[in-house]
């Protein structure tokens, strides 16, 4: 990667041991639009037989899953909001939202989609969420150590549902990733996280999670919130990631008020 002029990395250590470019990338993320994710949890049963446990999860908790949401503030009222979709699919059961620079996230989504397909071609198995997160994070790390490139200016929230249940991961420009029960990124991150800490309960249903997500976004929202200026993606036990239509979001908003 990089021409002969730039075969050295532009991300170098400072005397204090920090990678300043990554810090700046995190600043870029922090000034991006707020996005958040909430994971629903399966309840814990004390059973000796593992097979029975899985069956019970499916019967008793059909509505657990993951919600991700983001503000969709457009630079002008003249922009056609139907042409913009911030929440994207990586596979049929994994979705992603970002905070930071949109074009950077497009590159990552494209690479991750391809990696998911390559995984399937090699193992004939749908890629588990953790594997896809790991590979995406590896790409982001590559760009902090290669010649002539800069780190990505986005943090991603990856939501998926696989054999290990619902999962929510955050990936940072440095390439580090964490699993979260609920998380927020972007402009209003500290307020949003405080709100989530108060509101989050372990046995949230998917609908409740959507309501909580909307309320969290509302906290720092400037202006009138509607189905046109926020985006919500959900995935439930049916394992199909889906972006809600503006009409559906308006319904949820009506319920919340």
């Amino acid at each position, binding site marked *: 990667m990089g021409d002969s002029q730039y075969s050295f990395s532009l991300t170098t250590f400072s005397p204090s041991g920090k990678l300043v470019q990554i810090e700046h990338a995190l600043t870029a993320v922090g000034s991006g639009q707020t996005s958040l994710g909430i994971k629903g949890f399966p309840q814990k049963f004390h059973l000796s037989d593992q097979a029975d446990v899985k069956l019970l999860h499916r019967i008793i908790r059909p509505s657990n899953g993951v919600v991700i949401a983001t503000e969709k503030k457009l630079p002008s009222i003249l922009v056609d909001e139907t042409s913009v979709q911030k929440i*994207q*699919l*990586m596979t049929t059961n994994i979705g992603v939202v970002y905070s930071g620079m949109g074009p950077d996230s497009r590159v990552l989504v*494209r690479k991750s*989609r*391809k990696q998911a*397909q390559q995984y*399937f*071609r090699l193992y004939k198995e749908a890629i588990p969420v953790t594997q896809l997160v790991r590979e995406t994070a590896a790409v982001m790390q590559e760009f902090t150590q290669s010649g002539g490139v800069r780190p990505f200016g986005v943090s991603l929230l990856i939501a998926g549902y696989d054999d290990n249940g619902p999962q929510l991961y955050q990936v940072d420009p440095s390439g580090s990733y964490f699993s979260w029960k609920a998380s927020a990124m972007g402009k209003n991150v500290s307020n949003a996280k405080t709100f989530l800490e108060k509101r989050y309960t372990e046995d949230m249903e998917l609908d409740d999670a959507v309501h909580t997500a909307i309320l969290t976004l509302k906290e720092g929202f400037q202006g009138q919130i509607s189905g046109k200026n926020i985006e919500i993606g959900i995935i439930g036990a049916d394992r199909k990631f889906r972006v809600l239509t503006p009409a559906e979001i308006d319904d949820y908003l009506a319920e919340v008020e």
Partner: protein
Amino acid sequence: MGYMCWSSEIAYSGGMARFAADVPTRGGFSFDLCQRNEMLLKKGNQLPTFRKTGTTIVGLVFEDGVILGADTRATEGPIVADKNCEKIHYMAPNIYCCGAGTAADTEAVTDMVSSQLQLHRYATGRESRVVTALTLLKSHLFSYQGHVSAALVLGGVDITGPHLHTVYPHGSTDTLPFATMGSGSLAAMAIFESKFREGLTRDEGIKLVSEAICSGIFNDLGSGSNVDVCVITRGQTEYLRNHQLPNPRTYVSSRGYNFLKGHTGKTGEPYIPPNPRR
């Protein structure tokens, strides 16, 4: 796709294959080892045989969409390698592809294009079109100049309507209302040519496809076993695996064999029982 050597079978049987990892990949085949392979053949090194699907595959367009059919025998020369293999491959929810020729080639090429179609669906947000699959297949096969031995019947229904195409190993394609490929294609085409008409109903179409495949199964040595059918209409696809089983396996009677005394000759030596355990 990168660096691939068509003569890799010989290379592997001969010893280590040296792949130049530092040469930039350009796709298609590299013919660097051809001279060496000729020399090895003269010396007596035989190419290992590969499994082919001596096959009957068919497709036809009916009033609501497309019906594909295939037999289920995979052969390795004169030997039946798989009595019930699947020759109708998934490309997209609304597009399926029957494959004749070298089994590995048809599998690999349909898997690859299926993956590419999925990525395209994510990028565009739209249902895949049959012509997209067709163009991806033909450009891949053309770039390998016929060495990827895959002869395909591609069918599906998309927003522009039902489509049926045949793809040949060198990369040429035809668009047809009914098509047959494989070693049993003549037997199947005879059935189609006499009985096909436009605007068949679903049941008529399935019956005609099954008849054509059966004709291939019974009259062509390279085809046999069962009939697989796939019905694709707007919004729905039905994969009828083993729709007909006209060659049931008859096993030896479960009563077992009855050997009379004296069947087995005796040496006359005394029987010494083995040492009992202490």
